[in-house]
């Protein structure tokens, strides 16, 4: 492996890992704070991709807007949807057993997937990369690296930073972190827990949908795309330690590297590697790398 291949694969790993982090962050917060196993989280990633696919021609037609306005409208829709879903379905699950949550969110996956099928059909679609991001950077005579992938990494890092600032510097973040360590305690300290739940849930959904939107131009848009992401993200959440944002970040990057380099160096066993890694980590540290709230 020469240096430029190595560089390309490293950039790809980082980009993939960061994208996974966006989905896993919402998952780990929803799990850590509300104690809900949200199997439907991958479906929101898929929903985001389809939003990008559906909105971008509409936005372009309406006022000639580009990618950023598509993202903005998509995120607003996702927040509203997350808020409504929390109110309609998830708020009934907090007191229930984990298995009931698994059952209901499994039902939601089926429903969302079929609604998607009714509305958009089962074909694979592409989302165009806007002109100002469609260039490639030349690494040597033969190899280039698309700017859009760098853009994805940049946006993800920015979002991760915002998330970090909100969680560690604001009062809301303080409540969220406290909530992921001890739910009952902050409730008894007078924090409006219902409101907090709704915000965290809507934010988690919006970030997952945003990840789907950003990824849409490179990964294309296809049925069932959320489910592969869901399983990988559960792996990340568990490796990083449930409820830990820092853990999710580190685990996402590790998984990104293992998966990308595994496919290049050991293609025969690439599929297994991630799971072997997870099993090893959990046998070494049975409750993940980091504690909740970190």
């Amino acid at each position, binding site marked *: 492996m020469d240096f430029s291949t190595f560089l390309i694969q490293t950039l790809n790993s980082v980009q993939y890992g960061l994208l996974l982090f966006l989905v896993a962050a919402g998952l780990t917060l929803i*799990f850590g704070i509300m104690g809900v*196993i949200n*199997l439907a989280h991958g479906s929101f990633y898929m929903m985001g991709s389809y939003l990008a696919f559906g909105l971008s021609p509409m936005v372009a037609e309406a006022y000639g807007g580009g990618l950023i306005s598509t993202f903005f409208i998509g995120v607003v829709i996702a927040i509203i949807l997350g808020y409504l879903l929390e109110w309609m*379905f998830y708020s*009934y699950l907090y007191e*229930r057993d*984990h*298995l*009931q949550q*698994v*059952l*209901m969110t*499994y*039902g*939601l*996956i*089926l*429903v969302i*997937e*079929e*609604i998607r*099928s*009714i509305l958009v059909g089962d074909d694979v679609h592409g989302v165009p990369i806007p002109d100002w991001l469609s260039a490639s950077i030349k690494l040597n005579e033969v190899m280039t690296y698309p700017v859009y992938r760098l853009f994805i990494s940049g946006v993800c890092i920015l979002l991760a930073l915002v998330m970090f600032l909100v969680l560690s510097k604001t009062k809301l973040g303080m409540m969220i972190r406290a909530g992921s360590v001890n739910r009952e305690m902050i409730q008894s300290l007078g924090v409006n827990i219902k409101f907090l739940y709704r915000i965290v849930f809507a934010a988690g959904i919006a970030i997952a949908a945003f990840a789907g939107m950003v990824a849409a131009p490179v990964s294309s848009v296809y049925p069932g795309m959320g489910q592969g992401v869901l*399983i990988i993200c*559960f*792996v990340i959440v*568990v490796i990083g330690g*449930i409820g830990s944002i820092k853990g999710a970040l580190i685990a996402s990057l590790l998984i990104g590297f293992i998966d990308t380099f595994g496919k290049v160096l050991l293609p*025969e*066993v690439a*599929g*297994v590697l991630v*799971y*072997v890694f*997870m*099993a090893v980590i*959990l*046998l070494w540290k*049975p*409750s*993940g790398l980091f504690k909740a709230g970190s």
Partner: protein
Amino acid sequence: MKKSQIIFIVVLLIALIGLPFLGSEYAIDWMTKTLIYGIFALSLELLVGTTGLVCFGQAAFFGIGAYAVVNISADLDVPDTVYLLPISILLAGLYALFVGALSLRTKGVYFIMVTLAFAQMAYYVIHDTPIGGGTDGIYLYNKPSLLGFSLNSSLAFYLFTLVCLFFVFALLGLITQSRFGRALSGIRINELRMRAVGYETYNYKLMAFVISGMIAGLAGYLFAVKDGFVNPELLSWHLSGAVLIMIILGGLGHLRGAFIGAFAFALLEEFFRSEVIFGSFAKYWHLGLGLSIILCVAFLPRGLFGIPFILQSTLLGTKSADNESQIEEIK
């Protein structure tokens, strides 16, 4: 045994034996598939309902049982169930021993994810290596017979599956009534206390895990022989999820619940897929299935098994003894 249990089993037995004489070939085939899912669900019920261990990788043992019979019988002239079935069960049990020994070190959600990880490993090994024929799967050309009797007709195979189901039912019934089964229930309710009383809970859990894996292997064997075809999807997490859904749908904590759940799941699927009722909309059968699952969670928190108790308490305004004993058990 309680009266309700005996009534359930007798009615079930009569219905299941009588059914093939009324139904068409398609109905028999569908029933066979459902009975196999019933066995599969029962295997998981021992773990989830009795021991309180939520395994999200049950499909691995199912798939190993299925792949074992297809791979081994390919080299034989006259494959026979008498030795192929034990081999399938044994292989599934060995993998369960390996997975259980490692994953039982973790707890709760981590346990769920580790079992998923081991199932995914098995999936990718079958999917990516030549032993499993890759994504396309392999055919079982030479169906095993039973002591020289052919199991090729769907009626014969249906009856054989039925015998297996009742054997599993009886075995699990005995286990849950036994001292060993009581210990497993104790572990579900309060593991720490069981340890304090002097039980080596790890060994008990491992034993339950292996038995469960072996029964799942049996179900996989039956599935492979019925369809004459295996593919990696038999080990996928979708199937692990579906079987978990079946037992939750039926109601945890009862062997009957697992069976009812498997049956209800298959019935719902068949209902929403039927083009006679839904016309061209039947293509979107997942929608109906998903909505009914959500409704079940909302209105039947204890699964389908809880319906009689809900009816009893709303119609008569009384609480049955069974209901109260269960509430106590949950506490």
